[in-house]
């Protein structure tokens, strides 16, 4: 099957920097992928290129089998919700939420008006409200509503929830999962609230300084890296023969970060010799992968082994 997104050797140069540097990426159809990385890592540039809103300096980009730039057949099957989504409210001061939805309904063939109005209700957003009077969070809610109700085959969210509180973000995650279950599509969501969104992802792609440093199944990372702490002798005997990321000691206590799944049996054994096992969360893992590209490379090898 043709992948939903296929990127090879993609580079995007600006006069003062390289935003994307030889990116290779394949995203399968009907998956939810987390696009993770620090601010300025290149996530937004990548999403804008996928949505045909920006052009590669070199390399090839295919979305639904074709280059997206100025390609009507791809673009009407794709939606990008931007962090800084602009609406024509500065030209038309009376432009309302319902007008934005109406415009979107013309753009997207799978548009579901019922879903849009139920999302507005969940977010507490009135359809007759003027867009220029919306708060930051309400603008985000409108963007998310359009992104989900478009039911586009390729749905791209770029940090879609600026100004949204935890309750509204929960609405977004739950509604995304529910609608995805009924209408599977390819979703790419860039976020720095990694732990919050982690369980949504089938795959994660981590970008750092324009390069892909990690591209793997999300669930395989869970429990892949563990901090073992306790009496130094017990820690040493337990961690012997395991790949170690980091080791710290203080007097008779030690704390060692190991790579590799810990079996239930080993877990019991650790507890019985007085050790504490704390798994690194996906967020902690990504922070380390981004700050330390070499370490991330070796982690990928181990997880795929």
């Amino acid at each position: 099957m043709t992948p939903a997104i296929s990127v090879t050797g993609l580079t995007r140069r600006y006069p003062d920097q390289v935003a994307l540097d030889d990116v290779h990426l394949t995203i399968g159809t009907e998956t939810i992928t987390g696009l993770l990385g620090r601010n300025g890592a290149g996530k937004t540039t990548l999403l804008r290129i996928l949505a045909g809103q920006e052009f590669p300096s070199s390399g090839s980009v295919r979305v639904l089998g074709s280059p997206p730039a100025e390609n009507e057949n791809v673009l009407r099957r794709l939606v990008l919700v931007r962090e800084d989504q602009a609406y024509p409210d500065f030209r038309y001061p009376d432009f309302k939420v319902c007008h934005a939805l109406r415009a979107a309904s013309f753009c997207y063939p799978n548009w579901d008006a019922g879903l849009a109005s139920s999302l507005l209700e969940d977010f507490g957003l009135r359809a007759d409200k003027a867009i220029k009077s919306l708060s930051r969070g309400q603008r985000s809610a409108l963007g998310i509503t359009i992104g989900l109700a478009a039911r586009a085959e390729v749905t791209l969210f770029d940090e879609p929830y600026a100004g949204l509180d935890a309750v509204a973000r929960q609405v977004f995650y739950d509604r995304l999962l529910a609608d995805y279950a009924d209408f599977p599509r390819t979703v790419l969501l860039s976020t720095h609230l990694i732990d919050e969104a982690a369980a949504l992802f089938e795959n994660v792609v981590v970008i750092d300084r324009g390069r892909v440093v990690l591209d793997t199944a999300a669930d395989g990372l869970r429990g892949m890296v563990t901090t073992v702490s306790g009496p130094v002798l017990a820690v040493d005997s337990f961690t012997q023969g395991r790949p170690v990321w980091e080791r710290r000691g203080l007097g008779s206590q030690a704390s060692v970060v190991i790579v590799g799944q810990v079996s239930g049996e080993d877990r019991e054994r650790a507890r019985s010799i007085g050790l504490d096992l704390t798994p690194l969360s996906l967020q902690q893992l990504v922070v380390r992968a981004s700050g330390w590209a070499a370490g991330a490379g070796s982690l990928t090898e181990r997880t795929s082994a």
Partner: protein
Amino acid sequence: MVREMAGLDEGGPLFAQVAERLAGEIADGGLAEGARVPSTNELAAFYRINPATAAKGINVLADEGLLEKRRGIGMFVAAGARATLLARRRAGFTDRYVQPLLTEATRLGIDADELIGLIKEVSNERGGVAV
């Protein structure tokens, strides 16, 4: 903040935790043999996880013969699943509970006879398990 996932945690792959939860329900009789198992989408919504992850959890139990697929209807608890799971749990009982108990008892200077005495005492108080 890690999202609330109805009791799942970061300690290991979510699919394995989903499989473990379902196995636990079958062993405890909450999901009787022949009963329909929640669908992938129901599990995904309940745990707030990706449906592919939930499906992988169900497949673990199906591969072990604990669940069986009835075409077009869904997954059901297979005959004999509960007995298999209880036997497995029983086999792990010593490692999981008795060994750590003995380790901690030794640390506190409690010998085997004293330990047995303590167990009987608590059991009598509960009026429960016969020792």
